[in-house]
């Protein structure tokens, strides 16, 4: 990547973030409901309303509020949450690890399951197995993640109570970790008890999130594999005596996975968005749950902070996908 293209990319990111900042700022102020009306006690007078508006800086014009907010962001100050009365950036960054870990776990499940189904379907193409895989993919795709979540709660949480149905970690467990990346830190610390508890809490929401994505991956990858399997170099590998699995995994996969990689990158951003409902359903203490509460409470600074952080996250994911794509595709790597 040249310096010019790097600067161009950077400028693009800044413009995108500014656009997001403007849109989110305006939209949540135009949207019905204002935070002061939400907290008005019985008996409040006009003077009380004015006092509260001034206290939260809502007495200023929209432009003034935006300039103050933007100026604060440039200084690293995202404002104070109205409902939590805490620094927005601290709250949002504190909750981000839970969501990232959940989304990452869902992605791993989706990729492993999707790849396995795609490879199996390719190996057993035009057989009953492929038909069964297509049927399974159709089912998992047509049922939204929150319905999977409800189903898992009823079956694996209530009927056969194998897994906890709410929270990220058991209230009984005391941990004193340095970061909020509990899962990764418990692995690094070889803290088996905490890891087991975290995985148990994460299992149902992660599978619910990952299932629909696994179907998308399986279908796209299987289609790509089928196309690649007919190419000359794959035929040559087969003629050289490689087994079918080795042909798929070593020869066909590298080319076939390029479109899947792009898809996974795009879907990962949707997956993070999907955590909002799943986190609510499982009372999982991530960013999605926080976002719902922020919207219900009309906590303007918090909503703004969450949306902006989501934007940064999506941009970062796109960059990672682009880099991975370039690394796998020699034509892009060499310009």
């Amino acid at each position, binding site marked *: 990547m040249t310096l010019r293209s790097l600067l161009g990319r950077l400028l693009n990111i800044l413009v995108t973030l500014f656009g997001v900042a403007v849109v989110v700022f305006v939209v949540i102020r135009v949207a019905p409901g204002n935070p002061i009306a939400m907290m008005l006690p019985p008996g409040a007078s006009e003077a009380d309303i004015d006092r509260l508006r001034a206290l939260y800086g809502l007495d200023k014009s929209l432009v003034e509020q935006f300039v103050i907010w933007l100026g604060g962001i440039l200084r690293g100050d995202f404002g104070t949450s109205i409902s939590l009365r805490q620094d927005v950036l601290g709250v949002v960054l504190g909750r981000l690890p839970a969501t990232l870990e959940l989304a990452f776990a869902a992605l791993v499940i989706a990729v492993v399951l999707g790849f396995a189904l795609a490879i199996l379907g390719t190996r057993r193409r035009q057989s009953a197995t492929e038909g069964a895989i297509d049927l399974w993919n159709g089912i998992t795709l047509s049922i939204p993640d929150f319905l999977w979540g409800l189903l898992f709660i009823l079956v694996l949480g209530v009927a056969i109570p194998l897994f906890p149905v709410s929270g990220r970690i058991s209230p009984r467990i005391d941990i004193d970790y340095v970061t909020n990346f509990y899962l990764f830190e418990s692995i690094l610390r070889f803290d088996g008890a905490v890891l087991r508890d975290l995985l148990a809490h994460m*299992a149902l929401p992660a599978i619910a999130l990952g299932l629909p994505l696994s179907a998308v991956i399986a279908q796209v990858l299987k289609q790509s594999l089928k196309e690649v399997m007919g190419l000359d170099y794959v035929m040559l590998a087969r003629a050289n005596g490689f087994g079918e699995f080795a042909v798929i995994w070593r020869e066909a996969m590298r080319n076939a996975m390029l479109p899947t990689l792009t898809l996974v990158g795009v879907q990962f951003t949707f997956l993070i968005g999907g955590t909002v409902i799943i986190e609510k359903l499982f009372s999982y203490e991530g960013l999605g749950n926080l976002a719902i509460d922020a919207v219900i409470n009309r906590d303007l600074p918090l909503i703004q902070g969450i949306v902006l952080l989501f934007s940064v996250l999506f941009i970062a994911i796109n960059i990672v996908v682009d880099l991975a794509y370039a690394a796998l595709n020699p034509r892009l790597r060499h310009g």
Partner: protein
Amino acid sequence: MTLTRRALMGYGIAGLGFGALGLPNGARAQSGELTIAYNVNLPSFDPTVGPSAVNPTIQGIYQSVFDQYINQEPDLSFTGGLITEWGWTDDNTRIRMVVRDGVKWHDGSDFTAEDVVWSLERAGAADTGNPIQFVWSKIGNFAIDGNVITADVIEFEPTLFKWMGFLTGYVLPKAYYEKVGAEGFEAAPIGTGPYMVDKFERNAYLRLKANPDYWGGAPAFDTVTLKFVTDASSRVAEIESGASDITLEIPYEEYDRLTAKDGLEGVTTPVSDIGMIFLNDIEVMTDKNVRLAAAHAIDKSLIVDRLLSGYGVPIDTLQTPEYAAYDASIKVPYDPEKAKELLAASGYGPDNPVKFTIQTTRGFKPKDYEMIQAIVGLWRRVGIEAEIEVYEIAKHYELRAADQLAPAAFYNWGNSVGDPATSTGFAMFGPSPHSVWDTPDLIEKIAPLWGEANEEARIAGWKEVDKYIAEEGYVIPLIQYVQPIVHRTGLSVTPNVSGALHPYQVKPA
């Protein structure tokens, strides 16, 4: 089907994985522990500032950690809290309070009269963000003499002492708060309440441990965990799987299903939360016949039976039977023939219906939208054609504060202080930002009651106002809600009419 070695290994690994991760959820309750699947989050720990300070449901959590100046009992009556005696001087120019002896903060320091004065002064200061500041600022010039506090009355507020057992009426630790500051207090709050904060994971759970020196007697459980499970179906799963011992605010159908199961019991109580239809003095609602016809056309008992599984109490004023100004003689009966007559007198009927919009939330309260659908159906029979407009609760607050509600708007009004001033008063007094009925006749009737010093005359006055409102049809009270609580067998749960679930009031059966 042939079971290959590879497949067997696969099943084995999958089984081990499930076995390793899956935990038996049932029967987890340990002796001395109580887990409650709570229906709300706890956004902030300071019970005197911010939006959570005026959220009635959260008060049960606050009251576990902090004490109020005056205690409110489960039946809404008031008893001694951190002040044991209170009252006005004969001329209502001063108040006198006696502070409870022998109380300790959770850090072991002594609770003093200074804590009370500091808390009241802080609550009354305009810059601290106390939403009830307009009440607390009506007293000042505090003086302490031993355990006795006196203060000047700046403006007479008859409900002042009721507010001391209501929203933001909490005593906070002066010395500790000044030492750690607002952020330090949020991180490690202390109070004088029956439970001490052990661990708080925002949006996840609050773990409390018993305060063995609590002045009201040691709590029954060593540890109480409040899981914040805001989704009703998840709360049902929590109690049904055995992961929680108690939950509340679940659909009535689920309540009936769960309490029929072995190992689970339940309790239902009418709470201080009512469903009502605000009428705005605009468009057709300026016609008394239309208003009264709309009221008489609603069969509230039918709605309670059919939509709320029988869990609800029909009401005819904004007072419930537990409130100080409840008057059972005020009736607005279901009478569709009378409704038709009233409409006919104004030139309306089934062939020429009167038309207006009714706003409602959907899913904010149990069967809110369905209730309005049913009411619209009943109205149609007598000659009222109402168009339903669904909005979010935040929109309702905004419109109501701006006096821009539709001619009719469904809402639920909470009044756990039980005083008519905080029900009929704030909901129907035109200048209040919560009222949308602004006619001078009603303002003139209500205005003198705000400062009425004679309690008997004050309550009688509010009853008169309620009677007048019913006769004029200025509002349509619908039902008093019933709160369902499900708990495992072996527990004794005392429900509160306020709707707040107090862990301290849960004991082993």
